[in-house]
C-alpha cells in the first residue's frame, strides 16, 4: 500500500522524495510504530508550554531521519552545517548562562565568535560547491544563499561585538541576549536558503519572534516595550498575510509546498488568485525589508530597541528579506515579472523618496538611520527590479557594502551613547576635539552611506544605478540620484555638526565628555568592530574588485537567477522579433 502522496506534482526534488518513499516503504514494518507517536508530537510541541519538549529533539536532529531509512547523505544535511555551528553556539550559550551572570559575561562572547566564525568558514567552503537540494527539497545552498547567509552571519558577528558593553551597561542578561540574537540569525540564514513554503514560514517566524524579543529586551524602558509591541502586532499581521498567500499558492499547486512546484503551477495559471497570492507574498517581503508603505513600524522600532539590535535588524534582517524576495519573486513569480516589477518600482520610488526626505527632519541618530535605512532599501530594490545579471550582482554587492558602512555607523553611535547617554544629533556638536575616533568613523560611514566617491558605498550605489540604467529603468535611476543628493545633505549635516563647530559651540554632553578608556570588558571588541567596519568602508571602495567578483559569482553560481535571466532574455528576443522596427534605435537616431 502506497501511503506516500501520489498527488504531488513531480519536480526534481519531488523525484527524490519518491525515491525516499520507496526506501520508506521497505522499512515500513519497523517504523510504522514511531509514526503514530511522531504524529502526536508536532501538535503537542505547538503547545507553548511544551517548548521544553523540543529541547530534547534539537540535538537529535538527524536521529529520526535515520529511523525513516533516510540517511544523512540523502538529506544532504551538510548544507546546513553553518547553521548547525550557530545552533551549537546558541545551546552552549544557554548552558553557560546557567552558571551565572559572571560566567556568562566571561564566556558567552568567545562562544559566539567561535560559532559564527565556524559558520563563516563553512559558508566559504560551500561557495561554488556542487549544488544539490538538501532536506528533500526544503533547502538549497546555492551561491546566492551562501552570499546572503554570509552577510547575515557577518552582521550578527559585528552586532554582537558592538553590543556586549551596551547590554551589560543596561543591566540585562548577556547570555540570553546572545542566544536570542543567534536564534534570529539562524532564522534569517534559513530564510535565505529555504526553497519550501513551510520552511520559509518557520524560518521567517524564528527571525521575527526573536526580533520582537530583542526589541523589547530593555524591559524596564517603556520605549522598548512599545517598540516590541508595535513590532509584534505589525509582524504578526504580516505573517498572517503571508500564510494566506502561501495557502493560495499551495492550493494552486494542488498539494505541494516546494517553490519549484509553485513556480511550475504559476506558469499555467493566470487567474486573479495568482495576483492575490502575489500581492500577499509581496506585502510580507515589503514588510521585512521595510519598504514604503509597509515601513510604519521601522522608526518606532528602531528608536525603542536597543541600538545593537537595531544594527542587526537594519542589516541582517533586511538581507534575509531581500533573499526571500529573490527566492519568491524571481524563483516563483517569474512568469509574472512585469506585474511584480511594476509593484516594486512603485515601492522603490516611494521608499527612496519618503525615507530620504523624512530623514531630513529627524533629531536623533537612531531615527535618522531608520529613515535612511528605508531609503537604502529603496536603492537595493532597483537591482531587484532590473532582473539582469548586473542588477542581482549589484544587490548582493550593495548589501555587503551596507553591512560594513551601516554597522560602522551604529558602532559609533553606540560608543557615543555609552559615553554620553545621548543619541541626539545636536549633542554631537564639536565632538572632533574630544573623540576623534568616533568623529572619523562616523564621518566615513555616513559619507559612504551617502555615496561619496572613494568610499565603498559609492561603488555599490554606482553599480546599482549602472545596472538600472542599462536595463532602461530611467525613472528609478533618476529618483535614486535625486534622493541620493538629499541623503547626502542630512548625512553631511551630522558631519558638519561634529567637525565644524568651534569648541565653545560644543554641546553640553560633549563639553562634559568623559575621558576615553577602553579597558572595560566589551569595549575592546567594540573598538575592533568599529575600526574594522570603518577600514573596510574606507579602503574597500578602492580595493573593491574582489567584492565585485564575489557578487558576480553569487549570481552566476545560482541556477535560479540564471534561469530567470535567460527566460527574460528569451522573452525580450521574441518581443523584438515581433516588433519589426525596434523603437530605441530610431530615437537614438
Amino acid at each position: 500500500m502506497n501511503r506516500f502522496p501520489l498527488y504531488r506534482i513531480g519536480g526534481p526534488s519531488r523525484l527524490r522524495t519518491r525515491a525516499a518513499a520507496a526506501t520508506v516503504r521497505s522499512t515500513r514494518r519497523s517504523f510504522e510504530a514511531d509514526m503514530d507517536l511522531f504524529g502526536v508530537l508536532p501538535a503537542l510541541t505547538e503547545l507553548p508550554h511544551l517548548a521544553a519538549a523540543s529541547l530534547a529533539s534539537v540535538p537529535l536532529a538527524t536521529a529520526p531521519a535515520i529511523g525513516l531509512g533516510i540517511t544523512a547523505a540523502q538529506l544532504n544535511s551538510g548544507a546546513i552545517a553553518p547553521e548547525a555551528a550557530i545552533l551549537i553556539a546558541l545551546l552552549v550559550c544557554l548552558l553557560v548562562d546557567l552558571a551565572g551572570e559572571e560566567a556568562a559575561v566571561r564566556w558567552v562572547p568567545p562562544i559566539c565568535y567561535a560559532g559564527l566564525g565556524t559558520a563563516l568558514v563553512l559558508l566559504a567552503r560551500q561557495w561554488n560547491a556542487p549544488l544539490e537540494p538538501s532536506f528533500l527539497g526544503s533547502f538549497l545552498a546555492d551561491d546566492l544563499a551562501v552570499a546572503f547567509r554570509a552577510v547575515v552571519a557577518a552582521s550578527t558577528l559585528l552586532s554582537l561585538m558592538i553590543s556586549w558593553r551596551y547590554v551589560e551597561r543596561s543591566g540585562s542578561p548577556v547570555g540570553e541576549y546572545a542566544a536570542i540574537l543567534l536564534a534570529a540569525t539562524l532564522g534569517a540564514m534559513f530564510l535565505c536558503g529555504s526553497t519550501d513554503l513551510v520552511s520559509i514560514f518557520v524560518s521567517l517566524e524564528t527571525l521575527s519572534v526573536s526580533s520582537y524579543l530583542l526589541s523589547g529586551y530593555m524591559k524596564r524602558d517603556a520605549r522598548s516595550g512599545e517598540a516590541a509591541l508595535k513590532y509584534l502586532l505589525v509582524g504578526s499581521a504580516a505573517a498572517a498575510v503571508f500564510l494566506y498567500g502561501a495557502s493560495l499558492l499551495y492550493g494552486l499547486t494542488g498539494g505541494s509546498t516546494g517553490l519549484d512546484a509553485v513556480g511550475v503551477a504559476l506558469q499555467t495559471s493566470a487567474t486573479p488568485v495568482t495576483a492575490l497570492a502575489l500581492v500577499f507574498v509581496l506585502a510580507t517581503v515589503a514588510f521585512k525589508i521595510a519598504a514604503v508603505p509597509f515601513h510604519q513600524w521601522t522608526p518606532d522600532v528602531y528608536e525603542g530597541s536597543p541600538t545593537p539590535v537595531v544594527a542587526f535588524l537594519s542589516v541582517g534582517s533586511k538581507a534575509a528579506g531581500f533573499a526571500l524576495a529573490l527566492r519568491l519573486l524571481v524563483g516563483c513569480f517569474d512568469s509574472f515579472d512585469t506585474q511584480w516589477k511594476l509593484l516594486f518600482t512603485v515601492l522603490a520610488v516611494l521608499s527612496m523618496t519618503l525615507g530620504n526626505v523624512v530623514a531630513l527632519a529627524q533629531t536623533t541618530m537612531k531615527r535618522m538611520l531608520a529613515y535612511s535605512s528605508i531609503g537604502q532599501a529603496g536603492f537595493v530594490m532597483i537591482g531587484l527590479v532590473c532582473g539582469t545579471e548586473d542588477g542581482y550582482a549589484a544587490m548582493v554587492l550593495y548589501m555587503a557594502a551596507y553591512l560594513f558602512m551601516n554597522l560602522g555607523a551604529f558602532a559609533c553611535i553606540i560608543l557615543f551613547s555609552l559615553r554620553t547617554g545621548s543619541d541626539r544629533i545636536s549633542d554631537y556638536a564639536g565632538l572632533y576635539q574630544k573623540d576623534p575616533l568616533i568623529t572619523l568613523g562616523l564621518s566615513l560611514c555616513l559619507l559612504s552611506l551617502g555615496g561619496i566617491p572613494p568610499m565603498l558605498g559609492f561603488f555599490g550605489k554606482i553599480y546599482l544605478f549602472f545596472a538600472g540604467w542599462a536595463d532602461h529603468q530611467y525613472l528609478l535611476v533618476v529618483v535614486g540620484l535625486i534622493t541620493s543628493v538629499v541623503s547626502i545633505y542630512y548625512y553631511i549635516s551630522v558631519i558638519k555638526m561634529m567637525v565644524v563647530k568651534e569648541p565653545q559651540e560644543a554641546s553640553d554632553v560633549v563639553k562634559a565628555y568623559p575621558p576615553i578608556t577602553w579597558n572595560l570588558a566589551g569595549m575592546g571588541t567594540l573598538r575592533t568592530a568599529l575600526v574594522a567596519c570603518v577600514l573596510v568602508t574606507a579602503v574597500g571602495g578602492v580595493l573593491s574588485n574582489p567584492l565585485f567578483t564575489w557578487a558576480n559569482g553569487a549570481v552566476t553560481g545560482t541556477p535560479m537567477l540564471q534561469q530567470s535571466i535567460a527566460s527574460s532574455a528569451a522573452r525580450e528576443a521574441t518581443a523584438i522579433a515581433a516588433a519589426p522596427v525596434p523603437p530605441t534605435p530610431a530615437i537614438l537616431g
Partner: protein
Amino acid sequence: MTIASLTQLICFAALSITLVVGSLGVVLLPNIVYSAFLLCGVFLSVAGLYLLLNASFVAAAQVLVYVGAVNVLILFAIMLVNKKEDLAEIPRLALRRLLSGGVCLGLFLLLLRVDLTTPWAVPGPVGIGEGATIRIGEHLFSDYLLPFELASVLLLMSMIGAIVLARRDVFGSDLITGEDVDQGLIEKVRPPLLLDPTTPSPSALQETI
C-alpha cells in the same frame, strides 16, 4: 440524498454558521471577555470542519492547541488585567468604523471574486482518514524535517524570551563597573549634564509644580 450526506450537509451548515457568526462576534462585540469566549467557539467549529473533512487528528490538534492552550492563555491575560478604564474618546469613530468596514467588505468581495473565478481542482485528492496521523508523521520526518526541527528552535527561543521578559529578578548594578543600572535604553532623554546644579532643570521644575 443518503442519510450520511444529509447529516454531513446539516453539520456543515451548522458549523459554518457558528463559525461566521462567532467570528463576527469576536470582532464586533464591545465586551472583550465575550470576544474571547466566542473565539473558543470559533476554534471549536473549525475543529468540527476538520472532522467533516475526515481529518480527525488535525481536529484534535486544533482543539488541544487553540482551545486548550491559546484561548485559555488569552482568557487568563484578559482576566488578570480586566481593569475598567475610561479611555479617551476616539475622534470620528463612526467614520473610522465605516472606513474599515468598507475596506473589509472590499477585501471580502475581492476574495469572493477570486474564489469564483479560479478553476479549482475539485474534487481534490481523496482523504485518507485514519491514516492521516501516520502520513503527517511521515511528512514531518521526511520532506518537512527541516521546518520541523527549526520549529523546536523557535519554540525554545519563545519560551526563553518569555521567561526573560517576565521574570522579576534584575541586576541592580553593572557587573563590571558597579554602576547602577535600570534595564532601560542607554539613550536617555537626560537634562544636559553641565547645567548649573543650583538652577533646577526643566523637568525637575515641572515635577515641583
